[in-house]
């Protein structure tokens, strides 16, 4: 090499700087807070949840701060909570599912109609309903992973298709609660109540909590869970690292469909009846719960437990403001504020280089 080619020699000799090492330097208090939040993303919604319970508890006293009222919140958010688990999975892959509410309601309608129109035993009807929800999810997954269509568009379409099919198939008829109670009580199983002290739980509530814990464990401790995050973070990088991106996306939409079908079963328990016009609000409320729960809409970041906390925050505000006698519009007002605050906090946490 000629002399001019050796221009990098100067840096070859000075090796004591150790610039390619990993160091956890100690920065100020705010930096440490930021770091902790970055490592445990479900912490923010948990703090907000605890603070809001304390504030409403202080304002309302035992009317709010009682086992009965607090477990009432759980019952009120169970459907949205279960659907939010499905929505979280999808948003973690950087997708979005607008058809979750429609899948929920059509699954409940299928369960009801199988029993009452065709006389199939309720246990089998429930299995058929769960399979049907999975199938709806598979349709979304197929269009998104194989046809490469954007999730927003696909689910905007399937939302309308599934909802219309729901009305056509059910002939817009409600199956009455008394009929279900006498002939097929299993359909209302998720609504079964049991008490511990003053606290009232339903199997639907237990299912929501167990589902959230189970999904959190799966996402953290299985290869599939890590793949969900990797696909949402950077699909091309995941593909090159050997992740089967198509299969991961397909499985996420199918599991989301299955979870929505379980939400449909819980919906029968909650309402008592099978109503094709119910659960219309599950779409937007599940997305709200996920966003308030700190899961990034750009995928790959956040914890599914955050979505549970997000759903509970909405429940606490709804019940708390109603007990305070405030106009229901204030609930929406504060939820709007929370959504924007959640996204702002998310952006702050992600500034890791600071």
């Amino acid at each position, binding site marked *: 090499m000629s002399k001019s080619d050796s221009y990098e020699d100067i840096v070859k000799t000075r090796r004591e700087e150790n610039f390619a090492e990993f160091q*956890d330097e100690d920065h100020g208090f705010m930096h440490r807070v930021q770091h902790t939040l970055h490592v445990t993303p479900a912490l923010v919604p948990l703090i907000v949840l605890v603070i809001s319970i304390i504030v409403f508890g202080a304002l309302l006293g035992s009317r709010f701060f009682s086992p009965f009222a607090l477990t009432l919140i759980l019952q009120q958010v169970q459907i949205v909570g279960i659907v939010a688990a499905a929505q979280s999975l999808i948003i973690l892959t950087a997708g979005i599912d607008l058809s979750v509410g429609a899948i929920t309601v059509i699954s409940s309608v299928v369960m009801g109609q199988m029993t009452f129109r065709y006389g199939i035993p309720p246990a089998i009807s429930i299995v058929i309903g769960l399979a049907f929800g999975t199938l709806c999810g598979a349709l979304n997954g197929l269009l998104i992973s194989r046809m490469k269509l954007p999730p927003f568009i696909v689910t905007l379409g399937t939302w309308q298709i599934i909802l219309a099919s729901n009305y056509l198939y059910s002939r817009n008829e409600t199956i009455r609660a008394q009929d279900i109670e006498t002939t097929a009580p299993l359909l209302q199983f998720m609504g079964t109540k049991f008490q511990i002290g003053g606290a009232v739980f339903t199997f639907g509530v237990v299912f929501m909590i167990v589902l959230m814990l189970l999904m959190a464990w799966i996402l953290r401790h299985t290869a599939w869970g*890590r*793949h969900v995050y*990797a696909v949402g973070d950077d699909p091309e990088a995941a593909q*090159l*690292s050997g992740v089967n991106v198509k299969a991961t996306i397909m499985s996420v939409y199918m599991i989301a469909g299955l979870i929505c079908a379980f939400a449909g079963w819980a919906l029968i328990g909650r309402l008592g009846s099978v109503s094709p016009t119910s659960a219309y609000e599950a779409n937007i409320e599940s997305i709200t719960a996920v966003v308030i729960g700190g899961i990034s809409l750009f995928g790959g970041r956040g914890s599914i437990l955050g979505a549970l906390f997000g759903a509970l925050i909405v429940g606490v505000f709804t019940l708390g403001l109603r007990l305070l006698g405030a106009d229901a519009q204030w609930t929406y007002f504060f939820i709007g504020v929370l959504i924007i605050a959640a996204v702002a906090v998310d952006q702050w946490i992600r500034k890791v280089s600071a």
Partner: protein
Amino acid sequence: MTTPILSAKNLVKRYGRVTALDHCDFELMPGEILAVIGDNGAGKSTLIKALSGAVVPEEGEVYLDGKRVSFTAPTDARDAGIETVYQTLAMSPALSIADNMFMGREIRKPGIMGKVFRQLDRKAMEDFARQKLSDLGLMTIQNINQTVETLSGGQRQGVAVARAAAFGSKVIILDEPTAALGVKESRRVLELIQDVRDRGIPIILISHNMPHVFELADRVHIHRLGRRLCVINPRDYSMSDAVAFMTGAKEPEPQAA
């Protein structure tokens, strides 16, 4: 003469009317660093992709250890012991160093927790990742659970090279490893590449940086117009010669090839 560990004969790949590989030959000897240089559009990426399974050539054969292989996906090549560090690094920024190193080849726990519940053996993965990083002198602290996005460019490259070195039993392909790095970080990565070579793993290095190529490479494969123009020994030629061959300004002597 020893047999090449990885070789290719008569590779052809066309994209529509463009011939990216035109009856291209390739040889990588055991334990060497072979640099592949060529002007943009000469087809060196396609050559590398054909060797790493990302592209399936229309004609020609690839031999690994003297045995004919045909890769149809990057995972095929990986399973055969060929690891590629892509220019984009192929890492998920929000996941930890350990997660990234094991992406797509996770270790599950032994016994019922791993088999039935498919639980990952985090401790084994973290220990292994830590071990590999310290082997290459990249590890001074214990935080293997740091997310990749908190690392600098050189550190990320280091993790990517360590990942390839950890699993690449036969061949490691490095695509522009210093392209996005500063001078000092490049230096560290070059040393890392030499460390890996000293462990006996042959390396294919694709680079536009002539000083780096001439410093590291044992042989230089010059690619031009979709085929191997010649292979030169960097000690016999100057960088300007190499650039002249690459751009067609000068013809190599017949015996050089």
